[in-house]
């Protein structure tokens, strides 16, 4: 490994601009004539729109235009869609209700957009938005998914009787029931996975620019996947044909899934730009973000786990109700199905699994993928169940896991996944050692002397990422392929541009992708630029989510580098009159192995472009592209241990230590990987301890619509983390990478809750474990 190659802790190339205030986020963009948009939003969770009167608003100072959903419909702008088809177990397709970018008949959650106001300033647009008179007829509301399935509840979409979107299953119900019937012990538990707001620090924003001269649109937007945005806005929403629509996602301030989706605002601002003749910029405020950014999770599951007399798991039965909110967001159907139930085998050899999932409409914001997407739900369910079982069976939590670990690979689970590599004992050993598990009893006794209740908990997670083999996900209903593209352009002076369909919104691609090139050719990373996020510059790509940039995006770069290397070697061999099989590339030079003949990298590149002396028949230039479609998912796994101290007087949980031992396969930049783990842990701990989206069940008002009521993890809520990695390289991609972006958020919640329930001696605890809940649970146990 070179100092800037694979495995090096290289400081990030992109940092300087962020540290000096030169980052360029969507809200920083300004173009001549630009005006500002504010959306008129429904204050009701469910209502019919009788009429919209914008006359007074249009007469307000600075107002350019006020547009509503009827005009949008008249202009042929289409419905928002969910791009992953799921069929119910009776064979019927999922029931997708109409989601209009601007509602003109019915609003279905607080924040549903009904009109856009464009004005000279944000303040004037806000003034005018208040003057838009919308006459609503209020309808009854339901926010809870289980309740929404009952008879006689408010109905959200005529397409979906009883609000049921689909009733889906996976696995073998008969074999599972048989295992449960024959079990020596069955652990039963109800698991609630709380609803979260992703909260990237940069609120969503978009700038729509229509150029009447070329009938061309440009959309700056806070997106994790600008090409997908262009595709769906073109193919489904009829905004413009792809060749007339450029989507640019510049610096993006975090996403965590919430910026995968195409929201009404992008569509409406582009359309409004054409309608009003001015560029239109909209920037979400934080309350709008809470109201309208896709939420995450919100599951209620009943679990039965069956054990034989040797404490081996023989069956797992899961019945889940998942709340998808008022409309089906872009990938919402995949999250509680193929991203969730396919992981229910965890790290364990379970012969029979059956999961049934019902998804439901409610009068709440749409729910879609949020960091981990389905896999945190599976992990939380499994790892709380395992801990509960260990306590019931009187076995140590580590022992119960070891008894059931998968140890031979590849391993086919009963729920589609084929695990390719892993060493779960290694992670468990590493985590227990780092946490000084064996010293816990003494620490607990010491804490008890101070009146504090100490607890320890673990979680052994597995996830499937590097999504995903296109044909496989296509057969499961995905509307897109999940390959990735890359193009490597060697300039005539030898500097290099890598164009990638992956998108960095904090992950550090400008550094890690450059490290691949530095590693391959021995050129400095400063001579390598990463280009991404602009559909006019970069070939079609699928973007960044599901920890796929390393395993899929970088694999595409590797394929393109292979082609560049092959051609470079041919050119060098020709220049040095050697056989191309004898050429090696080291330290920025092409050498004939075993001789002192060399051609500097830049000279080879120049030769490619002067084309004065190339091998016969070779095209000039040095630029290669590749599309990489993964052969399988990747399977990062690990063990997390959390130790807490609960103050029985107040119920406050203090995290004493948090240990993460992960297997991510090969690692490009350990510094960045550690950072990803830290961030994931904070989000997982936030879910377990602090965060909760709370709707008033009576009227559907969002009660946690700002940081005054939605508890974000702050620095003093968290400890410094103890992280380490082990490595079983992924056999299915050229770099042996598994992915690291989501693990922290997947593995941490059950470790923390298991620690708290251990401390207080009461297993009846739901997330978030607020001081009040922990206090009440601790007292109920006493």
């Amino acid at each position: 490994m070179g100092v800037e190659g694979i495995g090096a802790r290289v400081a990030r190339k992109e940092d300087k601009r962020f540290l000096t205030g030169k980052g360029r986020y969507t809200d920083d963009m300004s173009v001549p004539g630009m005006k500002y948009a504010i959306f008129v939003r429904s204050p009701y969770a469910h209502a019919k729109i009788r009429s919209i009167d914008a006359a007074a608003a249009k007469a307000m100072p600075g107002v350019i235009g006020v547009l509503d959903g009827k005009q949008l419909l008249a202009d042929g702008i289409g419905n928002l869609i969910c791009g992953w088809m799921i069929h119910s177990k009776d064979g019927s397709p999922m029931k997708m209700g109409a989601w209009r970018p601007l509602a003109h008949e019915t609003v279905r959650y607080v924040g549903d957009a009904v009109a856009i106001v464009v004005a000279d300033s944000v303040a004037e647009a806000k003034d005018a938005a208040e003057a838009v008179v919308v006459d609503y007829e209020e309808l009854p509301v339901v926010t809870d998914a289980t309740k929404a399935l009952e008879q006689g509840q408010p109905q959200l979409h005529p397409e979906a009787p009883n609000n049921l979107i689909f009733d889906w299953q996976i696995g073998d119900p008969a074999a599972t029931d048989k295992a449960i019937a024959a079990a020596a012990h069955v652990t039963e538990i109800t698991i609630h996975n709380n609803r979260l707001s992703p909260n990237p620090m940069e609120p969503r924003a978009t700038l729509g620019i229509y150029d009447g001269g070329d009938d061309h649109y440009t959309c700056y937007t806070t997106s994790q996947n600008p090409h997908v945005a262009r595709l769906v806005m073109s193919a489904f929403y009829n905004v413009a044909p792809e060749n007339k629509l450029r989507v640019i996602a510049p610096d993006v301030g975090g996403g965590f899934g919430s910026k995968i989706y195409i929201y009404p605002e992008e569509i409406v601002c582009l359309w409004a730009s054409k309608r009003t003749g001015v560029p239109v910029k909209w920037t979400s405020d934080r309350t709008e973000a809470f109201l309208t950014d896709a939420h995450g999770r919100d599951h209620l599951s009943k679990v039965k786990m069956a054990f034989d007399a040797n404490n081996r798991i023989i069956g797992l039965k899961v019945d889940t109700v998942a709340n998808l909110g008022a409309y089906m967001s872009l990938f919402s159907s995949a999250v509680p199905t193929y991203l969730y139930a396919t992981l229910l085998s965890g790290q364990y050899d379970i012969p029979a699994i059956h999961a049934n999932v019902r998804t439901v409409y409610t009068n709440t914001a749409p729910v879609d993928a949020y960091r981990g997407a389905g896999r945190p739900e599976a992990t939380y369910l499994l790892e709380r169940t395992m801990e509960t079982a260990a306590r019931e069976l009187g076995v140590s939590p580590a022992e119960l896991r070891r008894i059931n670990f998968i140890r031979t690979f590849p391993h086919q689970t009963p729920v589609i996944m084929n695990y390719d590599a892993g060493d779960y004992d290694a992670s468990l050993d590493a985590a227990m050692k780092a946490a000084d598990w064996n010293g816990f009893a003494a620490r607990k006794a010491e804490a008890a002397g101070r009146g504090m209740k100490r607890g320890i908990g673990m979680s052994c997670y597995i996830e499937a990422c590097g999504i995903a083999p296109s044909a496989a996900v296509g057969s499961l209903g995905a509307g897109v392929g999940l390959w990735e593209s890359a193009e490597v352009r060697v300039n005539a002076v030898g500097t290099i541009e890598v164009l990638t369909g992956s998108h960095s919104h904090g992950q550090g691609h400008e550094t890690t992708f450059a490290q691949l090139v530095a590693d391959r050719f021995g050129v400095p990373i400063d001579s390598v630029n990463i280009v991404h996020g602009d559909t006019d510059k970069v070939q079609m790509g699928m973007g960044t989510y599901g920890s796929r940039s390393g395993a899929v995006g970088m694999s595409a770069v590797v394929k393109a580098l292979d082609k560049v290397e092959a051609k470079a070697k041919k050119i060098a061999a020709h220049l040095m009159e050697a056989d191309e099989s004898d050429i090696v590339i080291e330290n920025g030079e092409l050498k004939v192995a075993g001789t002192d003949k060399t051609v500097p990298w830049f000279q080879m590149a120049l030769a490619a472009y002067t084309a004065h002396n190339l091998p016969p028949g070779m095209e000039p230039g040095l630029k290669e592209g590749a599309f990489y479609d993964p052969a399988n998912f990747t399977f990062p796994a690990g063990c997390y241990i959390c130790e807490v101290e609960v103050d029985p007087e107040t119920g406050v949980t203090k995290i004493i230590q948090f240990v993460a031992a992960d297997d991510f396969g090969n690692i490009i930049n350990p510094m960045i990987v550690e950072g990803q783990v830290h961030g994931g842990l904070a989000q997982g701990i936030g879910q377990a301890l602090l965060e909760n989206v709370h709707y008033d069940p009576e009227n559907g008002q969002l009660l946690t619509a700002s940081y005054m009521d939605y508890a974000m993890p702050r620095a003093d809520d968290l400890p410094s983390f103890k992280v380490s990695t082990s490595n079983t390289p992924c056999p299915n991609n050229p770099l042996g990478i598994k992915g690291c972006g989501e693990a922290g958020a997947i593995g941490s919640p059950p470790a923390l809750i298991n620690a708290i329930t251990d401390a207080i001696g009461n297993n009846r605890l739901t997330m978030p474990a607020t001081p009040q809940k922990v206090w009440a649970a601790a007292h109920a146990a006493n």
Partner: protein
Amino acid sequence: MAKITMTVNGRQVSGQCDDRTLLVHFIRENLGLTGTHVGCDTSQCGTCVVHMDGKSVKSCSTLAAQAAGSDITTIEGLAANGELHPVQAAFKANHGLQCGFCTPGMVMTAVDMIRRHGGQLDEATVRAELEGNICRCTGYHNIVKSILAAAAEMGGARVAAE
């Protein structure tokens, strides 16, 4: 509309704005200094932190008019002669940032924190002092590390100079 004059990053600047204009919008829109961000509506996230007369303040909860006549430093004014400020350098060296959106506020907060505490900072103090700054990417681990490293560096430099 009123004319507001203040010193920003060492330069006297003026601009016309409504009395209701927030300092952050004056900085971003009138002055084009977009490094100072807005991340919430309730004065909690700290992405908007600048220094006013040498002290950290939230520019999203301050009117431009309140700041008239004051001396403002934004993230753009921190690096001198193209050299990163020691706090900026420490954030880079310790991977104290990911998406970069909270970073200007974090850096301005850290500079103020180190000014008040000098080399006396410890981890618990840094975490407590970060109460007004939210980061969603880093889990704070490397931000805390960056600030402690910068404090040591700056505290050490000050001792050496004395």
